[in-house]
């Protein structure tokens, strides 16, 4: 990147600076730590200079935003053209309560919706299923049927606003409910936009809300890709996620490597079925964590874009739209403390800033009380304001990729890429992503990192403000979210009503058709849609698939 002669001179000057200035200084005042290592255990040295990035070729390795390799951003204007979508993940209790929260958020300036479902829904159980006991609405909204979906989005213009739904095992079915609801309101499939998370591989690795075994799950996912680009072209049929992998305890490098590895696996699966890469690849999206180490996170997002573009090119993608990686970011839940909860606002601000400097397309900021409960109105409003302040007051949106060219950031971007490819090789040698999952490779890596991190905190090698340093003995007194206690009964009544009023024989016929198709290899989306339109419940539809596909049992890896 720089003239060889100039670099030589800089090197000489650096050596003399180290000898005359730096070493003298640390002799008198040693540095605070023996070694500075970031959260991925990469050693960070005291100073970065042009030497560290001299090997880079600007046009080839760094390039321009909106063009391959997309390191500096997926669009040429980035936030000068359009700000990231402010999309707060929300959901609790019954559809009525959550609908109210959505309206509140939209009123206060959020620009996209994001649905959190409760555990029974995530596992494909109706609210009245025995395993749903005690879990209704606790960590998200309960959606057992199309009726609930109708209430959830009542009064919300789904043709004008995009919705992201965090659902995996039963993603195809919940997506069908969203589509059916829009259709019933006269909104055609090609007018709705949004995302379904639909990333089963990371469920096996980290989040654990899987239902069926890997093979049939992949089949369902490719079904959604196919249906998506043909019928619902504005929809992102997958959000390949690293967030949960990070929350489970992985390092940033692992988050990057495992997520991209999963992504490539999905691409290969779709290609195996004969889908053209340039037809579906532009509808793949990603979801990353924004954790504490500011520069590491920024480097991570940049490296992600470059690696993905390169790898997809290798697989034969030709269109620009297929190569550019779009992603949503959420600030790290696991970095929040229950102690002195107000300070979480500060953490979230820094993490959100990293995501913005990393070029995210969409962002969720956590609320200060989320280590204790689901966010209260005030807390989520502050979280939203955090994004708005960054967008409007900080000036970081004035130019594209402001940190491009930083010696540290470019070096770290390269380093993370290097470490990622090492993981790609490891997984390759294990036979690929799914064999590696079955061998417990990812789970073991994550458990190891999680344990190491905890030890560092317990042994005071790593400071966790408010937890192992700067503690405060106080009663935590912030208002926590209270849910409607009558919500569960209301939901069960609604379910019973629904089962009574619908055309049962139509439901039975549709479920039968679905069962037959699931045993074969037809695309299941149209059949699932039929079931949903006739008001089959989530549980009933999933049960059919459970019968045909079986249920997945995970190995125990610590």
């Amino acid at each position, binding site marked *: 990147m720089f003239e060889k002669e100039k670099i030589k001179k800089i090197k000489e000057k650096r050596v003399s600076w180290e000898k005359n200035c730096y070493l003298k200084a640390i002799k008198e005042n040693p540095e605070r730590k023996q070694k500075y290592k970031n959260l991925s255990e990469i050693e960070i040295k005291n100073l970065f200079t042009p030497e560290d990035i001299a090997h880079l070729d600007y046009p080839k390795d760094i390039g321009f935003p909106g063009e391959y390799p997309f390191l500096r951003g997926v669009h040429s204007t980035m936030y000068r053209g359009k700000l990231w979508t402010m999309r707060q993940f929300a959901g609790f209790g019954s559809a009525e309560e959550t609908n109210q929260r959505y309206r509140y958020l939209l009123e206060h300036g959020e620009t996209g919706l994001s649905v959190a479902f409760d555990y029974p829904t995530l596992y494909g159980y109706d609210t009245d299923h025995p395993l749903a006991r005690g879990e209704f609405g606790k960590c998200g909204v309960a959606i057992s049927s199309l009726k609930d979906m109708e209430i959830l989005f009542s009064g919300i213009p789904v043709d004008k606003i995009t919705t992201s739904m965090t659902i995996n095992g039963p993603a195809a079915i919940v997506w069908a409910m969203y589509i059916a609801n829009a259709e019933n309101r006269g909104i055609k499939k090609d007018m709705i936009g949004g995302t379904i998370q639909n990333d089963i591989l990371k469920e096996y690795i980290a989040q654990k809300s899987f239902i069926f*075994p890997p093979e049939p799950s992949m089949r369902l996912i490719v079904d959604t890709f196919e249906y998506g680009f043909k019928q619902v072209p504005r929809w992102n049929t997958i959000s390949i996620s690293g967030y949960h992998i990070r929350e489970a305890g992985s390092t940033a490098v692992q988050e990057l490597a495992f997520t991209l590895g999963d992504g490539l696996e999905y691409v290969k699966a779709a290609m195996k079925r004969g889908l053209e890469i340039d037809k579906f690849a532009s509808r793949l999206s990603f979801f990353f964590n924004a954790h504490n180490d500011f520069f590491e996170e920024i480097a991570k997002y940049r490296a992600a874009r470059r690696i993905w573009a390169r790898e997809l090119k290798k697989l034969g993608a030709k269109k620009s739209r297929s190569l550019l990686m779009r992603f949503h970011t959420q600030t790290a839940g696991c970095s929040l403390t229950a102690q002195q909860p107000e300070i979480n606002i500060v953490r979230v601000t820094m993490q959100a800033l990293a995501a913005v400097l990393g070029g995210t397309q969409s962002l969720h900021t956590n609320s200060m009380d989320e280590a204790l409960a689901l966010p209260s109105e005030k807390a989520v409003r502050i979280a939203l304001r955090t994004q708005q302040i960054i967008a409007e007051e900080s000036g970081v949106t004035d130019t594209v990729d402001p940190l491009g060219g930083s010696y540290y950031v470019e070096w770290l971007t390269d380093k993370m890429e290097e470490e990622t490819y090492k993981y790609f090789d490891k997984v390759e040698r294990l*036979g690929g992503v799914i064999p590696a999952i079955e*061998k417990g490779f990812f789970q073991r890596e994550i458990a190891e990192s999680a344990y190491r991190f905890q030890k560092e905190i317990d042994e005071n090698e790593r400071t966790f403000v408010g937890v192992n340093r700067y503690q405060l003995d106080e009663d935590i007194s912030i208002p926590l979210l209270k849910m409607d206690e009558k919500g569960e009964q209301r939901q069960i009544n609604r379910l019973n009503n629904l089962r009574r009023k619908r055309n049962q024989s139509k439901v039975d016929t549709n479920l039968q058709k679905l069962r037959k198709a699931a045993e074969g290899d037809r695309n299941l989306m149209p059949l699932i849609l039929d079931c949903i339109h006739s008001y089959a419940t989530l549980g009933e539809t999933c049960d059919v698939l459970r019968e045909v596909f079986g249920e997945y*049992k*995970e*190995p*125990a890896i*610590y």
Partner: protein
Amino acid sequence: MSDLSSSVLKGDVRSIARLITLVENDSSDAIESMKKIHKHTGRAHVIGVTGVMGSGKSSLIFELAYSYRKQGKKVGVIAIDPTSPFTGGALLGDRVRMMDLSADDGVFIRSMGTHGMLGGLTSAVYDVVEILDAAGMDIILVETVGVGQAEVDIVKIADTTLVVLVPGLGDFIQTIKAGLMEIADIFVVNKADRSGVEQIVAEIESMLDISCKTDRRIPVVKTSAKESKGILDLLDEIENHMIYLRKSKVFETKRRKRYEAELTEIIRKRLMGFIFDESKLKKKVEFLIDQISRKELDPYTAADEILGKILK
């Protein structure tokens, strides 16, 4: 401590569990009960399951237990995981694969650590087999760690020993410890839906062609949990093996060997306990070890002294 034997014989779960804990802790409270139950043992078919790590032993055991339950048999499962020699602790996770059976009253599953034995099964395992047997189990499945001596020692306790392998080991078969390949009464190639199945079956068969010592040809059974295949074949082969044992009278010989091993373990433990733990001899032993360290004495002479004291 009340005598647990009668409630164990009735199959009371709490008593079974409590007695197992007592024998695991070498509690003298257990001895009375153990003495009483011995004559009520001998009915259960003890099946040892061993093999390389990652071969899916736990899932296989789950499938076997499930099938035996369908036959109306009562099943006991002993799942052994390594105890850390440094901390003395153990993470016992084999039950995870068997959780669907945990609601079934006809199945008793117990997780045990290896208790830092340098290899080999602790005498506690023999005791637990006796307890489960006396409590009325028809089948007792013993799953051992895939490394160390324990995998070979399983033959001492089991009537039928299954050695579980998986495809993709390739030339690994040559390098697998000789002992593991010799103790099998039945070879199981698990995860047989993977590629490389025929290869590994062929390797095992050719090894058996060369070195099979008994008059019974050791069968190789392919199983796959994914495709729900092979379990019935495996059950048949286990049944066949039992028939063979009884017909050929090898059964009595095997059982006799088990009791010999068990007696040896009990004596060894008591003796070692007496020498190294009892305060009378302990001080003397410590003193002798110091002398050995200072080269004032050699280990053989020291042993003579200690044994001399006991055998007097």
